[in-house]
């Protein structure tokens, strides 16, 4: 545990994020059920978001809100990068949108062919 404790916090988040990406990809590639694939996608997406957040971290920084807690004069040295935070916000919403559409596809596919198995949807090929 001491090794972990020595690591920079953002690196841990980064690694977890990347790990999540891999887990999600594994799920997308091996789970035949579409809902599970969507779960895999969500995991991947979340992993990327974690990576993004970790990138924005500045050692010892706090939230980039310039108010009484963080005086303007010293702000530059005390806050984390606001940009990745802003980006991740956008990315989350987009991930949500994609997930919603994916889910509605899954619903429709189930209705149309009474199955959710991806390998049973292979009529278009070659």
């Amino acid at each position, binding site marked *: 545990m001491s090794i972990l404790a020595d690591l920079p916090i953002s690196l841990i988040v980064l690694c977890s994020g990347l790990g999540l*990406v891999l887990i999600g*990809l594994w799920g*997308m*590639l*091996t789970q*035949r059920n*579409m809902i599970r*694939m969507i779960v895999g*996608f969500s995991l*991947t*997406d979340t992993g*990327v978001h974690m*990576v*993004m957040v970790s*990138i924005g971290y500045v050692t010892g920084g706090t939230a980039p809100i310039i108010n009484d807690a963080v005086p303007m004069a010293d702000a530059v040295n005390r806050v984390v990068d606001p*940009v*990745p935070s802003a*980006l991740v916000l*956008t*990315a989350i919403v*987009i991930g949500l*949108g*994609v997930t919603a*559409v*994916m889910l*509605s*596809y*899954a619903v*429709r*596919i189930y209705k*149309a*062919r009474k199955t959710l198995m*991806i*390998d049973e*949807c*292979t*009529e*278009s*090929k*070659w």
Partner: protein
Amino acid sequence: MVSSFFSDILLHPLGIYVLALGAGFLIPLFDRAHRGSAVLVFFAALAGMVAIAGLNLLAIVNGAPSIDIETAGIAPPFSINLRFGLLEGGFVLAVNTAALLAAWHCLPALRQHASALLLFLIMVMGINGMIMTRDLFNLFIFIEITSIATYALIGMERTGSVLAAGFKYIIATSVATTFFLLGTIFIYYQVGTLNIDDIIVHADLIQGPIGFIATLFVLTSLLIELKPYPANGWGLDVYETAHSGIASLISVGVSAGVFFAIYKVLPLMDSYLTSIAFIGGATFLVSNIIGLKQDNARRLLGYSSIGQMGLLTLALALLLQLEASSQLVLVVGGLFINHMLAKAGLFWLAGIIDRSQLKDWCAIAQRPGLLLLLGIMMAALIGLPPFPGFWAKWQLVMILAEGGQYLWIAVVLIGSLLEAAYLFRWFSHARGTDNNSMGDSSTDEVPPQAVVSLAQQLPVAIATLLLFVIGYVMALAMNIETPGMFLPLLAGFALWLIDGIRGRLKALAMLLVVGAGGYWLTNDLDGINRLFSYLLVGGGLLVSIAVMYRNDDRRGFYPLLAVLLLSLAVLLRAKTSLEFFFGWELMTLSSYLLVTLGRNGVKPALNYLLFSLASAYFILAGFALAYAASGSLLLSDLGNSGDSIGLIFSLLAIGFVIKMGGFGVHIWLPGAYAEADDDFTALLSAVVSKAGIFGLVLIAANLGVQSDIGLDPTYVLGWIGILTATFGALMAVFQEDIKRMVAYSSMGQLGYIVTGIALMSHLGWVSALYMTVNHFLFKGILFLSIAGIVLRTNERMMYKMGGLIKNMPFTFVFTMIAIIAMSGVPPLTGFGGKWMLFNALMDKGWYFIAAFAFFSSAVAFLYMFRLLQTVFLGQRKLEHAQLREAPAILLAPQFIMIAAIMVISAYPRLLLDPLSAAIDPWISNTLVWEGFALQTQYGYWNAPMIMAVVGGVWMVPLIILLLVSLTMKIQKVEQFNIVYAAERPHRPEDTHFAYNFFAHYDRAIGFLVRPRATAFWNAAVEWSHTLASSLRVFYNGNGQTYALFILMYFVAMVLFNGGLGS
């Protein structure tokens, strides 16, 4: 205030977003009020987007600076900015225009749901954003906007297969964009900015493994969006199943956006240009190979789409690598706009005709308008003139040649050929395999025809129009002589407008147009071009008179014929290799279409087209090398090509020889000649084949003689020529079909001419040109005679004829004279050609070629006799007893040509002097005349004297016989009155020895002419299909497999470009 609102907001490129979003957000409300009003708002917004893009682009083209749109009132890189420059403007305008047309196309589906309308609108805006934004993360947003809108629209028709395809599409693209995001954030980590320009400025900060991986992630995910092989099965499924309008927009719009995004980030990717080019090239090549095996029209379009994007990627990467970015607009822009209009048009057509299997496309066989549109789209797609793709491909190949990228030239050309193969196979299906233009068997069922309203065709028609317009503009940019070079098309268009009037009237109009146009195009030519203009234009007109023997509708025939004949004039007029190639391709296309008009012409026409295109691509490659070596496009500068002259000559010669049906690549020839309309076959053989000769003479003159370098290829060419002659003759011997036989004969006769040109001596060339003229005369006569015979007997198998000399005496005499002129028997014209050729061959020391020439001209007697014997002589079939002579309009041109043969036979000097003069600029005259006798180092030839002696020795016995006859009782006997063991034959079939006439010859040496070439090419086709099958195993339809391929792509890109080290 109001005016500034208009100029600053609405007409500003920003207005595109304002319009799209404003309308998009409001459409649900309008929809609640009134569905129609929502549709109105939708179109108004789209039209506005087109107008904004158009007006701003116009301003930029006229010199205004490119527009930078800053947001938030803060300068970049601290805020997001958009750019609307020349390239951006072009892409945006193109995408929006296509979107407007696509919207019209899929309006019936879109208007069902207001959400579909707004999704469509926002999707287009997303593409616009992808093109214009200069911020990496903002690019991601626009990609996602486009993607999500696309996902939803794909699922608009909720059948099982669409949904499955859509889900695969989502999985694939979302994996790709995830990696894009990862890459983006790591780039931000290193550079500390998201503005692309700013990143480029600080590109040195991107370094180490993180920089390497981040850049590759960004690049690869964008490339994946372009659907590179093999990670593209998901794209194909969508192209196959989604609504055609949506599929078209994905193919041309979304791809355009992604492509432009790649273009934007490429400055960061300098070291990966090779990889990019490789991916593009492989995708282009492989998808076109796989397309060969595809039977589903929409999926075929998918392969073509993917292939085209591959080509675009390839072109982009190579142009940047070769530092030719000034040509980007012309090459990439041209290719893009071409792909966009043509591919979208095809998707729309596929949508409105709605037949998934290619073979069901005969549903438009009786719809000339639709066929025309289909043909134009396909021609544009494979880069035939005058469409933008032609100019772009030309320029691309030129640049590649300059950069020494020969392998890539091969990839581009081979890929294009493959694409042509499957596209025109499709066209063949649409054309219908079997069209009885003679109207002899009305029992054939016409498959149910597609019902298509004009409104549905409108977008396709507009796309067609735009293709022409842009093609013309590009022609201006390429400094092509206009309108001269476009005259064939104009003439064709004009005649197409009056295609509704009666047959003969149209023919007359065509002759007038071609006459006037041809004169205008060729009257200021001189030298050898002038000579050929008499032959090609004058001769073409002469033979064309015969087309009036038919008075039926012949839709499309006359306009196409005008295009063909005038494109020959263009060919002669060409000063630069580009103009030459333009005319050449125009000729190829129009003659292909004309062949398809024949009775069973569709399939052979496809062969013809493919070989012609292969020939054209060899020519293109040759010209490109010449341009690279000499730096000039002028045909007269071909000779300044230095060391590569041998290679250039070989490439060009291969091209022309294919077009002339050279030995081994002749298999297109008999089919095309046989199945084309009978009068058109005469033109093909007598006139069009001369274009190849002209080309050969041209390059021989400019490359072979001007340079001091010895050309070994000419010796090979000499052999090719004579082997063509020999095998053409041998194969002709064993044909039963009269047209096939004469077609093989034509091939053989052209072989001598090739050999003559290959000799590279004055005498050789004179003989070649002399034989060219002669070939024009006798083949014109022969094929026109055959047209008459086929017209009267409705039959092409010679053994089903016989004894026609009684019914068609003029045709017989003309044929006989033509055959004597062909055979080389003195005193007619053929002898002179053979004599000069033989002398020239001996002079050059090509003795064995001379021996082959002897042999092949002896073999030629076999089929020549057979033609006369089995058709005109022997026993007449009972049902042919009442046949009449061929129509006078068919005989008239033949008569003129007979007269010409006679005059030239007696006074060859009339012809030889101008021929010799035309050659003089290149090789000085070696003809020595003593009076009328021509002297060579070896022998002499006194044509008038020969004519006189032969006439004398022929007349004397005739007179004697006539005198004797006076004293005799000459009894004219009936057909069956022969010495037949004192019996009377029952039927003519019993005693007409015609079928398998040379069976014994076949027994003796028939093994030489077993169809090995055909077998070879069949094997090649077979092999390519097998290859296609093995290349497409990746497309197993499983979405997970596709996702796996995408991951593999990322891994492979990283490993390939440097691996995990460093």
